[in-house]
């Protein structure tokens, strides 16, 4: 995993680097393009100016020729004055170092076949020489031939001339010489030194990044700057490149621009750039870019790394959250599993948790003709509250299965909750026990919201609050009781209902609960389920879109005992009374129309239990009584045997072993065994100094 993410990070970096580099290259190239354009314009200007200057120099030489042509022509009449005429001519122009006239052969018979009077500048003086001879056959000179043949002036290519002291670069301007008779006498040539042109061309170029060259039309070097400006190797390289026609490339070390002079002899002016120097600024800029980019990428890498790390953490956190919420949903399922899901027509309850799991609970179940129920709320929400609530739930089930008194149930749960309650979580709870035959409701409130009693209207029950469970282990929770008339209901809830808030921070409140319940009571056929759902709907409408902040729990129990048949008898603690008991049972059961066999079984069970009381509850010779209450709702029959004798729980007695053979059987112990076998459930409690034993039998 680490390696993979590292690789992907490097991948991102490489892509980023390539992108930035691409941008840099494009930028560099476009800048370079702009610079090259600029260079083209500048060099065109510079080369144009140089061409003009060179043209001017050449024009001067041509002018010198023209101005002196009349004098030279005149001098032809007197051949001895020709030298002087040439001297005057070359004297007029400091660039001209030699002048000569190559006469057509035998122009002057006196001078022989070849005649070429030449004047050299030498220091402050002049040297006159006649150069023409068989060994110096100027008639074969291309320049001479060209001028004689075409009759037009001609600029020669440059050439190296040895003065005897040094080698210098010369060019020659040659014109046809026509005498006064109109006859072509020869060619007059003026040699001009051009070595200086190179420096002259370049002395205006202050920038050392380039130099100017002068070349003939076919690429022969005419003038170059001095070695201090450009090395001979660079000049040769440039000349070679121009010869190859590569004159604009900026990719090589040397970049060259050139123009051709518009006038004769159509030389080229070339500007040679050292690209290194020309592009140095943008190369420097690019180097700086590279440094900045590298720096940027390093920062980017750091950021990506940080991002990747935090993203991984986030992903881990998300996975953790998903796991927790998965577990929470399991917890919620477990919690929901424990709640009553099947409701008889007279009871309905619901929990709407605020989070995945809640700290609310409700429960109810019937044991021995009594409905045990509870509604509770743990301080706080979420998993800790739900866990504590689950504990309270199972404690309620455990204790209420063997204790009938709600206050005792609450005391037992409280002492358990207080044990190890280091986090000081409280539980408000209301535990109740409704005798389904008598309508007697016994309840104990551990700091819970006061329930509504629903008769013809909904009213808060004025009950004692006591303390929430979890405060003091020894707190004496007090029990209260009332008797419900058939048809009345009790509505229990948690503060999630009354403290549901709307967008204006208002509470739903008891008044709204009351008005919804009153509206329901006005309808004669309103069932507990309808009433609870009406309240739930009203609460939802009230909250609108405000999220539910606390668990919302409701439980509505309607006391609907059905067709009750009740009777009772009180017997003295004398064996003879058993006969009255038998008659009582038979009469009561006959009223219910029970089968003879069932009646006999019930009678036997009751007799065994009552005889036990008669024989053992009271000390010998002491008068005592036992009262038997008979209740039935046509589905089951319940007999409650109450005496004020010594505490005795028949459930704690072991059953007789009915598998032993005759000789080994004890004489007693059969009564309890028979009672257990004959009845469907037996419960015992000690209450108000009395033994209360309930025997229940289903009769449908």
């Amino acid at each position: 995993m680490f390696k993979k993410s590292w690789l992907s990070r490097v991948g991102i970096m490489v892509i980023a680097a390539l992108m930035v580099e691409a941008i840099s290259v494009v930028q560099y190239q476009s800048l370079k393009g702009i610079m090259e354009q600029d260079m083209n314009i500048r060099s065109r200007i510079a080369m144009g100016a140089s061409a003009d200057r060179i043209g001017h120099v050449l024009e001067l030489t041509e002018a010198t020729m023209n101005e002196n042509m009349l004098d030279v022509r005149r001098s032809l009449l007197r051949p001895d004055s020709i030298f002087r005429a040439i001297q005057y001519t070359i004297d007029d122009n400091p660039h001209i170092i030699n002048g000569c006239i190559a006469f057509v052969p035998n122009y002057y018979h006196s001078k022989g076949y070849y005649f070429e009077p030449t004047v050299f500048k030498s220091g402050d003086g002049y040297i006159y020489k006649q150069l023409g001879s068989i060994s110096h056959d100027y008639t074969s000179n291309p320049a001479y031939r060209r001028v004689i043949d075409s009759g037009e002036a001609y600029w020669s290519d440059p050439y190296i001339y040895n003065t005897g002291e040094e080698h210098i670069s010369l060019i020659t301007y040659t014109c046809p010489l026509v005498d006064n008779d109109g006859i072509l006498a020869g060619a007059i040539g003026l040699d001009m030194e051009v070595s200086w042109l190179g420096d002259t061309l370049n002395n205006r170029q202050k920038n050392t990044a380039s130099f100017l060259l002068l070349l003939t039309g076919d690429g022969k070097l005419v003038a170059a700057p001095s070695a201090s400006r450009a090395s001979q190797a660079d000049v040769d390289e440039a000349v070679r490149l121009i010869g190859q026609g590569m004159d604009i490339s900026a990719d090589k070390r040397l970049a060259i621009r050139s123009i051709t002079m518009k006038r004769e002899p159509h030389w080229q002016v070339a500007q040679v750039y050292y690209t290194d120097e020309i592009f140095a600024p943008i190369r420097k800029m690019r180097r700086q870019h590279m440094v900045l980019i590298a720096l940027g990428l390093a920062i980017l890498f750091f950021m990506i790394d940080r991002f990747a790390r935090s993203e991984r953490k986030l992903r881990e956190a998300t996975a953790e959250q998903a796991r927790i919420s998965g577990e929470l949903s399991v917890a919620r399922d477990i919690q929901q599993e424990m709640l009553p899901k099947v409701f008889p027509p007279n009871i309905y309850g619901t929990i709407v948790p605020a989070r995945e799991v809640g700290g609310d609970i409700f429960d109810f179940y019937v044991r021995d003709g009594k409905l045990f129920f509870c509604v509770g709320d743990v301080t706080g929400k979420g998993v800790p509250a739900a866990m504590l609530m689950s504990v309270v739930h199972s404690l309620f089930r455990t204790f209420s299965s063997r204790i009938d008194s709600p206050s005792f149930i609450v005391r037992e749960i409280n002492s358990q909750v207080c044990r190890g309650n280091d986090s000081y979580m409280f539980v408000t709870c209301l535990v109740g026990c409704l005798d389904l035959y008598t309508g007697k409701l016994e309840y104990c409130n551990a700091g819970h919201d006061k329930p509504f009693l629903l008769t013809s209207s909904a009213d808060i029950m004025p009950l004692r609050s006591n303390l929430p469970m979890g405060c003091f282990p020894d707190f004496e929770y007090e029990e209260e009781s009332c008797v419900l008339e058939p048809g009345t209901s009790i509505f229990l809830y948690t503060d999630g209902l009354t403290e549901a808030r709307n967008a204006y921070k208002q509470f739903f409140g008891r008044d709204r609960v009351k008005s919804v319940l009153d509206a329901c009571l006005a309808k004669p056929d309103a069932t507990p389920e309808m009433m609870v759902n009406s309240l739930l709907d009203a609460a939802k409408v009230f909250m609108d879109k405000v999220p539910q902040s606390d668990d919302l729990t409701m439980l509505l129990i309607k006391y609907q005992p059905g067709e009750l048949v009740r009777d009772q008898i009180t017997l003295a603690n004398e064996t003879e009374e058993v006969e009255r008991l038998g008659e009582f049972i038979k009469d009561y059961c006959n009223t219910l129309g029970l089968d003879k066999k069932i009646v006999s079984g019930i009678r036997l069970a009751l007799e065994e239990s009552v005889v036990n009381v008669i024989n053992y509850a009271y000390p010998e010779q002491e008068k005592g009584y036992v009262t038997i209450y008979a209740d039935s709702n046509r589905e089951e029959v319940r007999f409650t045997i109450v005496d004020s004798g010594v505490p005795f729980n028949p459930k704690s007695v072991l059953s007789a072993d009915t598998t032993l053979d005759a000789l080994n059987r004890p004489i007693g112990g059969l009564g309890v065994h028979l009672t257990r076998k004959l009845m469907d459930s037996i419960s015992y409690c000690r209450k108000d100094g009395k033994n209360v034993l309930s025997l229940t039998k289903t009769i449908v």
Partner: protein
Amino acid sequence: MKTTIQETDDKIVAILSGELDTAAAQETEQALQPLLDSKGKDVVIDCTELEYIASSGLRILLAILKQAKSVGSRVILKNVNDVIRDVLELTGFVSIFEFE
């Protein structure tokens, strides 16, 4: 509760009639004293008219059975109705008595 004892050469027959509840148990136990001295004769308890029996009645039957067994006599319950038989089954008495 009515108890009648008829003794012949080879057996003693006790006819129980009515309801043998706890109240009647003491009186019935007295009446059935001869059965505790069976002298080797088989004991037949005619339950044709016995309608009800409580555990105190069962105790009497068990005492008779134990005594008879000790002298090698048989105890036979005769014409037991369904109600009584249920009680005998619940207590496991069906496996220790003989029925006719």
